[in-house]
């Protein structure tokens, strides 16, 4: 028994739509981050603002072979960002917002509010993991009263080729996040206003 042509066409279009919607998940979580040396820490407690809405934000960018990759940049990069701040300051805490009501009870000296932007690409026609990944962290730093103290931007670039990423599809992304976190820590350390 053959199906009517319209049903076969609809089924075929559904399959094409499903294939077109394919986005491979990536994890941006870097296993290592900036090292913490207790002897050189700034004796301050600081906070950073990543909201639940930020953590839930899913981003889709290009991979290889016409495919896409999707990930949660704030959720995945939070650990590295926190490690970067912990490599500079004695104590670090997350804050739900940069408002005085949220900042006041936490007793922090500075509030770091990051904006994360990512890009990815691959020249490959046959493999989907990105060979290049870029992570930009633009950060505004305010004091406990909300006055701006500093503003800086860092970018981490990660690259990975097939032989490397065949066992870790997220490798270029992880490398990019690791570099961005190291540069973030350096930018904070360099700025005398952030001591």
């Amino acid at each position, binding site marked *: 028994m053959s199906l009517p042509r319209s049903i076969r066409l609809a089924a075929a279009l559904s399959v094409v739509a*499903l*294939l077109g919607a*394919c986005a*491979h*998940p*990536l*994890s941006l*979580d870097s*296993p290592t981050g900036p090292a913490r040396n207790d002897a050189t820490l700034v004796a301050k407690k600081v906070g950073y603002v990543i909201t*639940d809405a930020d953590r839930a934000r899913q981003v889709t960018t290009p991979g290889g072979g016409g495919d896409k990759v999707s990930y949660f940049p704030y*959720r*995945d990069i*939070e*650990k590295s960002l*926190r490690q970067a701040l912990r490599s500079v300051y004695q104590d670090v*805490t*997350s804050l*739900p917002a940069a408002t005085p009501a949220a900042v006041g009870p936490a007793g922090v000296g500075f509030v770091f509010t990051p904006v994360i932007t990512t890009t990815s690409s691959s020249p490959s026609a046959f*493999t*989907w993991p990105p060979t290049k990944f870029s992570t930009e962290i633009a950060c505004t730093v305010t004091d406990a009263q909300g006055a701006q103290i500093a503003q800086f931007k860092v970018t981490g670039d990660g690259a990975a080729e097939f032989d490397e990423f*065949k066992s870790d*599809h*997220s490798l270029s992304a992880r490398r990019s996040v690791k570099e961005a976190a190291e540069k973030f820590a350096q930018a904070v350390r360099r700025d005398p206003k952030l001591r």
Partner: protein
Amino acid sequence: MCRLRHAPCAPYTPDYDSVDRLKAASLAPVAVNPVQPNNPEAKVNKITLRGARLGAANGTFARYVEEALIRDLKEAGLYSAEAPTRISATLLVNDVDVTGFVTCDGTLDLEVVVTRADKPRLRKTYKMVTHFDSNFMGMIALQHGMAAYPQLVHAALKQIYVDPEFINAIRN
């Protein structure tokens, strides 16, 4: 790309908001007993994603949860291996199901027992179900499953850390 027979799950990431709240709550130091069952052949230590076996980098899923718990307590400044307050946990249900074509579920039930100087302070089972995207293509569904497990553990541990009964059980 070849079909995976062994799929490593992604690294665990803590819920820092709830970990920081524990840190700010002036609680007693706690130790963590090995999470059970530690037998790699136990049902809860085996998750299959459309034919591929999901693997925890550190051996079993019980160990994965134990290391996540210890790591979070260290982050909160509360971990001490010799503390009289001890957390014991048993995985009762532990599964990531990627049979769905559009969305799938992760399920984790964890029985938590808190004792202080061997006297019970809490016995409670925490149940967590998470939902995540899937795909009718097996390889993509598998990748979603690999990424979903750490989020399942993240959600389950967060549920424990924000529970007032748990917080009271480890309070000084």
